[in-house]
């Protein structure tokens, strides 16, 4: 047909930067098809923080759930301390919550756990990162207590599952104390206005 070359030219013209082209030329290109959904394994029940327990968040869009750990090729020792350990000491308790962003609880050394703050951790990749980064999955230190070195940031973090602003701890260094139980604590919930049919379910809760 006479129109075929023109048709092809038009077709090429309207597809100037297809995903396939990007795959060949750019690092970390988009998949041509959405990746197959990974099958999550049941996460260990958080011992001390259960914000999702009485207000389940059905959407996993901003879930912090991680894939199952792969068997290590070679056993790697987990360090017991890292980074800059100067300055005031804070006590941190790692708490993993599937549908709640953040690292865990942080308090001053002499404070009770009831005075602890739920924090997001500001890390400097390649320099000072959260202790769990030394495991094959960063959630494997759930339940660990640490001495933390660093300070609170002058900005808050937005937690997208529960529409709430939480504190930010800038980590510089840490020492492991060990696994321990702490009193049951609940991270902050949505504070935007009064309860509504949306805020009751938190952000991204629509099924």
């Amino acid at each position, binding site marked *: 047909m006479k129109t075929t070359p023109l048709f092809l030219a038009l077709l090429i013209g*309207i597809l*100037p*930067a*297809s*995903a396939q082209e*990007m795959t060949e030329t*750019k*690092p*970390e*290109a*988009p*998949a*041509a*098809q*959405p*990746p197959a959904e*990974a099958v*999550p394994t049941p996460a260990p029940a958080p011992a001390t923080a259960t914000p999702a327990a009485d207000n389940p968040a059905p*959407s*996993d*869009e*901003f*879930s*912090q*759930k*991680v*894939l199952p750990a792969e068997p290590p090729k070679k056993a790697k020792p987990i360090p017991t301390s890292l980074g800059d350990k100067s300055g005031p000491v804070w006590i941190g308790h790692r708490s993993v919550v599937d549908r709640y*962003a*953040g*690292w865990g609880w942080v308090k001053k050394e002499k404070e009770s756990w009831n005075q602890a703050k739920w924090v*997001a*951790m*500001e*890390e400097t*990749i390649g320099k000072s990162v*959260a202790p769990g980064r030394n495991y094959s*999955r*960063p959630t494997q230190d759930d339940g660990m207590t640490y001495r933390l070195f660093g300070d609170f940031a002058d*900005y*808050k*973090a*937005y*937690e*997208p599952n529960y*529409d709430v*602003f*939480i504190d*930010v701890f800038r980590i510089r260094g840490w020492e492991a104390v060990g696994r321990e139980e702490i009193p049951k604590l609940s991270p902050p919930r949505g504070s*935007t206005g009064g309860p509504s049919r*949306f805020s009751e379910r938190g*952000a*991204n809760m*629509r099924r």
Partner: protein
Amino acid sequence: MSLRMILLVALLACPGPSLLRANEQIFISGGPALRYFERNKVSSHDKFWGNFIHAGVLRYKEIAPTIPSGDTFTWLVFRPGYEARSREAEFDVPAEVENLIRPTGAKVVWFNSRDELINYLNRGQDRDKVKISRLEYFGHSNKRNWMFDYSNRLDGAVAEPFCLHLRDLRKIKSSSFAPGAYSQSWGCHSGEEYSAAWLKATGVRMVGAIGKTDYSGGGIPVLSTAGGYWTK
């Protein structure tokens, strides 16, 4: 005074309809998450750094025939997110962003925070003369927030100065927008609450998604929630 003169004076005294003016068309792109934070998650975001740019380029091709000649086209891009991804990916991501956008003819304006974005919307042009007639957002969102920096500075969260929450919308001047302006959020869940708040703050309707949107196919985002739809 003749009737003709009266009509002429009246015409000059009235503000001109937006159709006769050059308006501004705006795209906004949030930044990508870092793979360092996302790679082991079940809901892993932004395997491709350019989802929020690439989708906009394709959207531009779709709307280009409808853009009035004389309108300016501005593309606001959240710089810190692409710079951080650049350090991780070890190539110049912001330069690649500009390369992708260049064929659209858009003027790229990098912004570093919510406040800079709001300032641009309110004062980036002489808003008495150049009104915003289109605004479209590509990026992470939930029903109450546009999150330009999701899982980039902070794992699974967003630094507060790097998002545009419902509570911030009142800072945007409704007078910046042309009558009948079009706006759309291509992020997840915006139609569930954000669109209504946007309308209240700016006087402009915003098309938003009920449900999630998916950029991972490499094209214009598609609804990915069963029963999801776009608000009108």
